[in-house]
């Protein structure tokens, strides 16, 4: 039963338009691969490590084939071919490539049947590993249980992975359910994933496979101690989206920030690249049972949260449709939104509640990810604590699922250990005090909330149909999202986009989408 009195026909129209948008983008995706997709493929086949000068082996191997102009076949073909011919392991083959002893495209082409078989065998490594991690997660949850929704989500951002573990464990002991390790500013624009444990970075540290492992271990330990499964989050975004997905799937991450347009709009990554990358990365996340978090909250840091609310709703529909194409279920798509209306606006809380309730009604199965106020945080920590309290109330009143805690020191520094404690205490107090509140209330017919929700939905439908008519790339070029315009040929990473040859093959697509 709709509390908001929204028109189901409008909702249907929004989904249809979003589906048209997604279908159009899929035509682009299906014809192309990228260097990052092929590197992720290598990682899933067990290739890891870096050269003496620190270049990751997946980059070395992919770049060699790219330079020879044959990456359009897919890297799996060339790797399997060399593995058969030289009778070496994939890792040995990659090391030989790095030493300049193997040039993959010059290796005599082996029998087609044998190649197919070898490719499947190589792929099995990653598939088995991911399945084992999925099972491990299921067993942990069965044994330890998990926190109640809204899940309390905190970030750690010391810049040193070992310090991050201490802060994360402290937060869990205070009640946190989810820990996100913030990446160093700038990683999204690196066209490789650094190797090994890192103790440096600004506003966070590098996402590396070793860092994933270190934090995973830290959270499992403290999870046993407090008696619940603690979810680990990182950033599956930027130029290495698919590789991060592969690494996260193999190290049992639980949530990944994984938006279809974020990098294009906010990091000026080329859109042709990102659309292909997001597809492959989401496919891996889907297969690995990872819940993706989309980034609509970011729109509101540049555009006005009140005036641009419908673009958030529209983007949620687009993110949903694109995600469903990658084999994710609705339960795996945590659509994002945020509490970012200017608090000085009269009835700002009432409008926030309308928006949050609207997201809940439009996406009933999505574990919605709700982001705290940041834009209007001032450095007045006392006022900030009240703003966060209002945010906590909106969350429990509208049935949000994943609740990123607001820090009273937002706009001052990355959180101190006590800031996180105060935020957790605030949220726990509000959630407990208002646990049954949502079920007790209805919204007045044609009151402020119903009217606002219906207006936002209506504007979103018009917006989506306009985008569907012109195509998503054109819409982004016109600055229709977040007031930022990006062109299809601009931004970083276009040189890593390659047309597939007719015989292109990637074993993970069929396997992960269950097409075999």
């Amino acid at each position, binding site marked *: 039963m709709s509390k908001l009195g929204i028109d189901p026909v409008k909702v249907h129209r929004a989904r249809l338009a979003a589906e048209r948008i997604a279908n159009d983008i899929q035509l682009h995706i299906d014809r192309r691969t990228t260097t990052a997709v092929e590197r992720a493929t290598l990682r899933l086949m067990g290739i890891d490590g870096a050269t003496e000068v620190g270049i990751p082996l997946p980059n070395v191997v992919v770049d060699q084939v790219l330079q020879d102009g044959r990456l359009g076949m897919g890297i799996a073909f060339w790797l399997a071919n060399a593995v058969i011919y030289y009778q070496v392991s994939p890792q040995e083959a990659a090391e030989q490539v790095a030493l300049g002893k193997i040039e993959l495209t010059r290796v005599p082409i082996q029998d087609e049947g044998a190649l197919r078989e070898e490719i499947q065998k190589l792929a099995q490594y990653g598939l088995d590993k991911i399945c084992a991690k999925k099972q491990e997660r299921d067993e942990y949850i069965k044994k330890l249980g998990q926190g109640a929704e809204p899940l309390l989500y905190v970030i750690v951002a010391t810049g040193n992975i070992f310090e991050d573990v201490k802060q994360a464990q402290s937060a869990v002991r205070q009640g946190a359910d989810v820990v996100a390790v913030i990446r160093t*500013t700038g990683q999204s624009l690196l066209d490789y994933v650094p190797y090994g444990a890192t103790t440096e970075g*600004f506003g966070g540290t590098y996402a590396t496979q070793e860092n994933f492992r270190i934090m995973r271990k830290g959270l499992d330990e403290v999870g046993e101690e407090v008696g619940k499964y603690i979810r680990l989050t990182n950033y599956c975004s930027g130029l290495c989206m698919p590789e991060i997905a592969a690494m996260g799937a193999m190290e049992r991450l639980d949530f990944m920030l994984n938006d279809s347009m974020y990098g294009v709009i906010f990091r000026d990554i080329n859109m042709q690249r990102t659309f292909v990358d997001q597809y492959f990365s989401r496919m891996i996340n889907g297969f690995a049972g990872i819940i993706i978090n989309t980034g609509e909250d970011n729109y509101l840091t540049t555009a006005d949260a009140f005036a641009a609310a419908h673009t958030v709703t529209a983007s949620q529909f687009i993110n949903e449709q694109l995600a469903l194409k990658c084999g994710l279920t609705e339960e795996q798509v945590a659509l994002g939104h945020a509490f970012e209306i200017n608090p000085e606006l009269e009835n700002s809380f009432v409008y926030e509640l309308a928006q949050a309730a609207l997201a809940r009604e439009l996406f009933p199965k999505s574990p919605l990810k709700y982001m705290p106020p940041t834009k209007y945080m001032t450095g007045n920590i006392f006022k900030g604590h009240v703003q966060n309290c209002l945010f906590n109330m909106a969350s429990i009143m509208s049935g949000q699922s994943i609740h990123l805690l607001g820090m009273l020191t937002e*706009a001052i520094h990355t959180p101190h250990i006590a800031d996180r404690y105060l935020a957790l205490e605030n949220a726990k107090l509000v959630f407990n005090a208002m646990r049954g509140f949502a079920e007790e209330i209805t919204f007045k017919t044609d009151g402020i909330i119903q009217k606002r929700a219906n207006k936002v939905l209506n504007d979103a439908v018009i917006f989506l149909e306009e985008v569907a008519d012109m195509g998503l790339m054109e819409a982004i070029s016109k600055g229709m999202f977040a007031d930022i315009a990006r062109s299809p040929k601009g931004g970083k990473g276009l040189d890593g986009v390659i047309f597939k040859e007719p015989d292109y093959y990637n074993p993970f697509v069929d396997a992960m989408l269950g097409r075999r």
Partner: protein
Amino acid sequence: MEVDLTRIKPYGDTLNDGLMQLSFTLPIDLGDEAAEAARQLVGKMGFDEPKVVFSQSLGKGFSFYIVYGRCRETIDITTIRVEKVNVNVLSKKEIEDFIKQSLGRSINVIGACIESDAHTVGIDAIMNMKGYNGHKGLESYKGINALNLGAQVTCEELAARAMEIKADAVLISQVVTQKDIHIANLTRLIEILEAEGVRDKLITVVGGPRIDHALAQELGYDAGFGPGTYAEHVASYLVHEIHNRQRR
């Protein structure tokens, strides 16, 4: 009793009671000794009668305290001078009129978050059409050609684009200040502008939550703006500075 400006101290509920609140975390388990340690620490900091009013364990190895104490120190405010951007702040309309009447040409302003910094909130608030909190950004000003390059722009790229559009002013935003990364970034830009021989042709302005005018000047910038700055503050400074330079 009158306030003695040569001997200022904090005010709780009585003049010169010196009462202040502190909160902090110690990297030790909570216990009676830990709370006493927190109390003594505040005493050592120059507070009389420190009182721990609240303590809380943050789990293994960490404990949190709220402490009140009476500050012993006083400050003579009559001797204090602060470096600030000295400018008569005009309204948007007044700035537009000033450009038309006093400058007689439109001005070119380029802005970016440089190097590692990916946080565009500040530069967007100053430059983008919508601005922030009801204060329209520079893009909306008649007579100002504003070009916001956005996040993670290298110093080289910024310098090249500034020369290409014949910029009158460069606006730099630095939000991330962990481990003083902003100092390194800001220094690098000035070095590059000097190497290109364009440092003196440009008005260089830096802004951010941890930036002030004194820091900006120390790093070789013409002006620095901190929290609470809107587009009209920056624009007022720019048009006056361009006007002054034209007259020289």
